[in-house]
């Protein structure tokens, strides 16, 4: 494994107790034996990617990010200074919040408190925490349907998210959005999109807004960045490529984060993609493409720092591929029979929360007791969120026709000459429009 470690040091300076390889012994699918370098061990992939020079530009683009980290690494003799204690606790708390919340969601779903499609984020917390905890409140986050934890990391209160899932009027979207549409104007969570790929242009628009403010409206200190999260399946979608092009073209302050958990419902990433290395698609459009171990929050955070810094300085977008895994099925309706148990076990060993816990305790950043206290606090928070959601009222009928239009005159003029929205039945929600 030494070669793995040395390669990892480039942008993963932290030797974690777990291995960095995917299933090292058994290839996942026979037809891809020829591609075994990817399947067999991703660490080998990283060496290859750094050494291969299909184009000088490409290589420099990839290495650019890792070089910075490498330098930082070399400057720090000890690896402990990656995070301070406060930062560590913050990261830990955030990841535990995400995990506990999602587990509670599963419970509530099976108790019949929430319905429809609920997609849980267990196992991928490192990506959300690693990126979002570096953002300011004014920065925007755009996600897909697997958005509970992104909203939580960005600062949306757990009770608001839980109420939204229960469909109550106190939810962050007044119960009108649901699991797949988490929005928060206050915390700049731009959604929550049910169709994959749909959110990427919206994120690009938010980044465009930021650039517009800086250059046209002359708000000189506007350096808001946008982070767009999406999955491996989305990286085959046209909107993804169109947005990569536009973002790189106009140097928009956006970071495209691919949460590559290898599965799009039941479709393996390797079966769906001609070139499974998604980070390569960045340099094709003129932006750096970085591959990072998404099960390690500290590595993600390092890469994120660089990418966010780039965006803030106006240097343009970055494509970050996070190799991660979801411990549960695609959604609560997914029986999850297709994935190899060995693969699941392999990634379970790389649980980001356990990894961070181990790191913090081993480096004396925090004691077991402190971490336990955090876990307890989060449990209480989640319980309270559930109670709050339970106690919240369902939306009343009058809410039916609200929010369809920002300006309700859009419902038009009725036969009596008055605007429909002035009709009392309208505000009651019983009018037919």
């Amino acid at each position, binding site marked *: 494994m030494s070669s793995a470690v040395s390669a990892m040091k480039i942008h993963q300076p932290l030797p974690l107790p777990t291995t960095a390889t995917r299933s090292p012994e058994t290839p996942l699918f026979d037809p891809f034996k020829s591609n075994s370098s990817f399947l067999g061990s991703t660490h080998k992939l990283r060496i290859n990617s750094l050494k291969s020079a299909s184009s000088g530009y490409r290589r420099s683009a990839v290495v650019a990010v890792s070089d910075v980290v490498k330098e930082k690494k070399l400057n720090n003799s000890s690896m402990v200074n990656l995070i301070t204690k406060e930062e560590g606790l913050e990261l830990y708390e955030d990841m535990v919040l995400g995990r506990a919340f999602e587990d509670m969601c599963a419970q509530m779903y099976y108790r019949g408190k929430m319905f429809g499609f609920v997609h849980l984020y267990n196992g991928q917390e490192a990506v959300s925490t690693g990126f979002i905890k570096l953002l300011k409140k004014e920065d*925007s986050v*755009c996600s897909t349907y697997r958005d509970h934890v992104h909203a939580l990391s960005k600062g949306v209160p757990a009770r608001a998210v839980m109420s939204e899932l229960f469909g109550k009027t106190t*939810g*962050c*979207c*007044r119960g*009108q*959005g*649901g699991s797949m*549409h988490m*929005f*928060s*104007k206050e915390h*700049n969570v*731009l*959604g*929550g*999109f049910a*169709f994959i790929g*749909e959110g*990427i*242009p*919206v*994120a*690009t*628009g*938010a980044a*465009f*807004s*930021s*650039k*517009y*403010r800086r*250059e*046209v*409206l002359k708000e000189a200190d506007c350096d808001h960045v946008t982070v767009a999260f999406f999955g491996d399946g989305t990286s085959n979608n*046209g*909107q993804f490529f*169109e*947005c990569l*092009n*536009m973002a790189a*073209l106009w140097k928009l302050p956006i970071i495209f984060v691919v949460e590559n958990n290898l599965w799009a419902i039941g479709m393996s990433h390797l079966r769906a993609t001609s070139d499974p290395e998604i980070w390569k698609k960045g340099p094709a459009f003129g932006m750096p493409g970085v591959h990072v171990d998404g099960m390690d929050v500290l590595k993600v955070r390092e890469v994120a720092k660089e990418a966010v810094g780039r965006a803030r300085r106006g240097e343009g977008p970055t494509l970050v591929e996070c190799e991660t895994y979801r411990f549960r099925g695609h959604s609560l309706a997914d029986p999850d029979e297709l994935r190899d148990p060995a693969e699941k076990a392999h990634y379970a060993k790389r649980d980001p929360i356990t990894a961070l816990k181990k790191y913090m305790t081993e480096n004396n950043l925090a004691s077991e007791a402190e971490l336990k206290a955090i876990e307890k606090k989060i449990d209480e928070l989640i319980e309270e969120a559930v109670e709050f959601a339970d106690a919240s009222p369902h939306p009343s009928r009058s809410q039916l026709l609200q*929010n*369809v*239009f*920002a*300006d309700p*005159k*859009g*419902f*038009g*003029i*009725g*036969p*009596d*000459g008055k*605007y*429909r929205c002035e009709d009392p039945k309208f505000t009651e929600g019983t009018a037919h*429009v």
Partner: protein
Amino acid sequence: MLDVYFRNKLTELQDLSKLKVRKLKITNCENLDTVNEVPGCNSIVEEETNSTDSDEEIYSTDDDDDDDDDDDDDDDEGEEEEEESAKEGKTRALFGAIHPRNSVRCIRSKMAAIMQGIGAATALSSSSSSFDSKGFQLPSVKYFPERKATSLVVRSDGRLIPGSNLNARNVSGRLVTNAVAAKADTSATSTASKTGHELLLFEALREGLEEEMDRDPHVCVVGEDVGHYGGSYKVTKDLAPKYGDLRVLDTPIAENAFTGMAIGAAMTGLRPIVEGMNMGFLLLAYNQISNNCGMLHYTSGGQFTIPVVIRGPGGVGRQLGAEHSQRLESYFQSIPGIQMVACSTPYNAKGLMKAAIRSENPVILFEHVLLYNLKERIPDEEYVLSLEEAEMVRPGEHITILTYSRMRYHVMQAAKTLVNKGYDPEVIDIRSLKPFDLYTIGNSIKKTHRVLIVEECMRTGGIGASLTAAINENFNDYLDAPVMCLSSQDVPTPYAGTLEEWTVVQPAQIVTAVEQLCQ
């Protein structure tokens, strides 16, 4: 007298070198007085003198006039023409500069106008001249003599076809030269002011756009070729040099993505206007328009507004082929959360553009490829029209004709004929395709009790279909006859000019429909 009139007009327009015929019709855009142009109506004339199209135009003459009356009419007609041209403050439409891209189209429209102008003049005049079949050169324009029970069916190749007997039941014995019996609603006209400036429809759109961009720095334009190229129909001409490349953003060809980008920008505080180079291209952006543009305000619980304007030219043009001749209003009308408006005159184009930009709702503004060169005098003062209201084009008593966009002109063309036959149609340009202005429409139905809907949309699931349903639901008691809806055929628009013409509703069909409804 008419001869002189046209000759004078000819000399004014010598520089239209592409046209064999050097004559333009002056038309009153909003009142559609005496002579009217119908953009794209009927005549398709080749640029060469040998015009071989087989379009027809039907003009009716007063078949009961005696020769005595004819002379009177002729005199009156001539006087009226001169009066008209001398009047100020009356809005006129003139086919102005030929747009480079639309040169052929414009020529054809102009030819159409000329054809109709000639036709109308022919119908109204009693001088004994005959129609010249070879390219309408002015000096050789002749007019057919009056006949009894005539309908003048003039083919664009010049052959005259004795048409069906159209009885002109003009009670007064005089030919009615004005289709508009009275002035339209003050809200829709600018005739009160003698000042104002003349411009073409695309210039009116640009003016509205520019005024809004000056007023609010958050307003920006996003689209293909809107910046350096100035817009494929020149609606955004000269805006990029003025406002910069970021405010008038030239995008790559990625409709879905840049529409989504505009929506994201709108969510974060900007007010973008998305231009679809042709409305049909917005089919590629349907995902974003439906899911995000229409629904995001709702699914976010009202947190984010999407004050975006999506605009572009659509409709059947001049042999543009099936994919460039689409009418998307029927596809978009089901999307909850958006408003749709269609402009038809420079006056309402500018007003609706401004209203759409100022609206907090997402608005889709439908323009028409053939209407960009309509000319009208619009007020100098700033004005904003209501997005939800319909426009009364011509008040009447016998039948309500509901229409929008280009079909407005076909209807007014037909109205001319109908008036000469003694009918009094009330023409309403519904303007707001979603939601319908049921108040104006309802009041009209309560007066006339008969409804004809004329649209360019497809028959199935089109605006007419929705409007028919809405009328039947709300005003069933007031109807004396079933609502009739004339729409385009459910056919992909063919390239061939003759076929294309038959897919779209023509004035003759409108006349027939009205007669049928009013029996």
